[in-house]
């Protein structure tokens, strides 16, 4: 399976009379795009605004961040399965991407109405929060979109995500027929048998337990969000967005999943440091002890069947989902697979582990920092001149205060860097 990923850098973006890319400049006909979005009867309001790095601009609420990509040659479509897109297996042929630009899904729609999963993410384009999130250095095409309020929550979700995919597809199609300035070949060619076999195990949240629904919109695998047995995926499928969609943290977005530094780094070291065999994705937030143990054992079994001698495990959630994740590490180690766990940590309290369940088999871990953003010491974020999205925001642990979005704000509560994007350092004392 070979994928040629062509990159078209975007250094400048502006509104104009056509949607067009030339020499790093992206022109967007926003009227035409809004017209396309509004042709969907499920949509009540839509507008497009631009946010650029360094501006005193805040984007709220941010449901997803999408990198414009398009399939140029080969089967299927990027971000497959989501919003009724084709589910044909992706990862082959040629895909083009616009780099340095993102489509931001700005909407009040919650993923479900069962409580618990609130959208908390916002983006500042300047200031201390902007310095530590990857999206503030992108040129952001913000699709501010609200659906018809009478619709079912699942339909609302798909409608607003479809609106953003419409924009993403339109932007990416501007480079479909062009020769990419940069291109990288992704192919797992046979390598020396002396190199160890390594698998990547991304653990992906499922909203099924929290929402009580099999069709809740959230991060999906080929559009499926249910609790399912582990998925064997070629890394190229991930590059074409086979896993896409948001969860509720700043690093669980469609953009982060296709730019996942763990995946890219493992790929680039294939044939040099190890033999990158496959990806095995498992869903998390099973609700019984035996389910958690079962999915961990089955994932480790897959890894073993692929001849894995090493594994890299990441996850994108928190709380009880830690159980199936850490048990996967344990199960791999017990099958003789040396396993590295990349994770953020909880607050460190006196002598107590920052892991929910410290187990002896988890003997190689990489920390990406503390996930409660309060631990970052950013304090309140400064007011901004301009807000894209909702002018008001609910805050407080009880979600009972309404404040102006443009004013001083505490950072989004969570900063779990699931895939190692950040460049934070720390000193252990």
């Amino acid at each position, binding site marked *: 399976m070979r994928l040629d990923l062509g990159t078209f850098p975007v250094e400048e973006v502006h509104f104009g009379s056509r949607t067009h890319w030339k020499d790093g400049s992206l022109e967007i006909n926003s009227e035409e795009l809004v017209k396309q979005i509004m042709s969907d009867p499920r949509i009540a309001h839509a507008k497009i605004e631009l946010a650029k790095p360094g501006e005193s601009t805040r984007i709220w609420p941010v449901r997803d961040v999408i990198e414009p990509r398009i399939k140029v040659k080969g089967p299927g479509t990027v971000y497959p399965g989501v919003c009724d897109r084709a589910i044909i297996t992706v990862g082959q042929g040629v895909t083009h991407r616009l780099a340095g630009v993102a489509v931001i899904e700005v909407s009040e729609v919650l993923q479900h109405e069962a409580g618990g999963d609130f959208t908390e993410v916002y983006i500042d384009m300047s200031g201390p929060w902007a310095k530590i999130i990857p999206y503030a250095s992108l040129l952001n095409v913000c699709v501010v979109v609200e659906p018809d309020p009478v619709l079912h929550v699942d339909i609302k979700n798909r409608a607003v995500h479809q609106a953003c995919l419409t924009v993403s597809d339109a932007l990416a199609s501007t480079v479909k027929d062009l020769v990419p300035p940069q291109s990288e070949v992704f192919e797992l060619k046979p390598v020396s048998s002396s190199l160890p076999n390594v698998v990547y195990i991304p653990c992906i949240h499922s909203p099924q*337990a929290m929402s009580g629904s099999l069709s809740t919109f959230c991060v999906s695998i080929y559009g499926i969000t249910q609790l399912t047995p582990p998925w064997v995926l070629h890394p190229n499928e991930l590059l074409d967005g086979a896993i896409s969609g948001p969860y509720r943290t700043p690093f669980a977005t469609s953009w982060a999943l296709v730019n996942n530094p763990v995946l890219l780094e493992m790929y680039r070291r294939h044939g040099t440091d190890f033999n990158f065999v496959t990806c095995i994705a498992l869903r998390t937030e099973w*609700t*019984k002890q035996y389910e958690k143990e079962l999915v961990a054992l089955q994932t480790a079994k897959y890894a073993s069947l692929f001849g894995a001698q090493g594994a890299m495990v990441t996850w994108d959630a928190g709380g009880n989902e830690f*159980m199936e994740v850490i*048990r996967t590490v344990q199960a791999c180690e017990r099958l003789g697979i040396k396993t590295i766990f990349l994770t953020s940590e909880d607050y460190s309290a006196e002598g107590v582990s920052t892991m929910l369940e410290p187990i002896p088999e988890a003997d190689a871990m990489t920390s990406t920092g503390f996930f409660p953003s309060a631990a970052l010491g950013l304090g309140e974020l400064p007011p901004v001149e301009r807000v894209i999205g909702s002018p008001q925001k609910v805050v407080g642990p009880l979600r009972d205060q309404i404040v102006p979005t443009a004013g001083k704000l505490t950072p989004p509560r969570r900063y779990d860097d699931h895939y190692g994007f950040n460049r934070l350092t720390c000193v252990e004392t």
Partner: protein
Amino acid sequence: MVTAIYGLAMTTGAIRVVKGKRIEHVLGDPNLGVEKDRAYSLRLVRTGLKVLEEAVSGPTFFDPDEYMKAKEQEAHHAA
């Protein structure tokens, strides 16, 4: 401690661990219907109270079905 994730309770040192149903409904089972659900909940609560009488030396696991059955049998033999 009554918990659906008893493995975690055991490894993190809870002393008496009683097996609950699921994370969403630890002390009940809505699939049983209202009356049986109530009986099920009561059984779990009673198990929780009963195991307080047990002398344990470390994290100890109690399955409410097995434990209460054994206790009922003991009571039956004693009678």
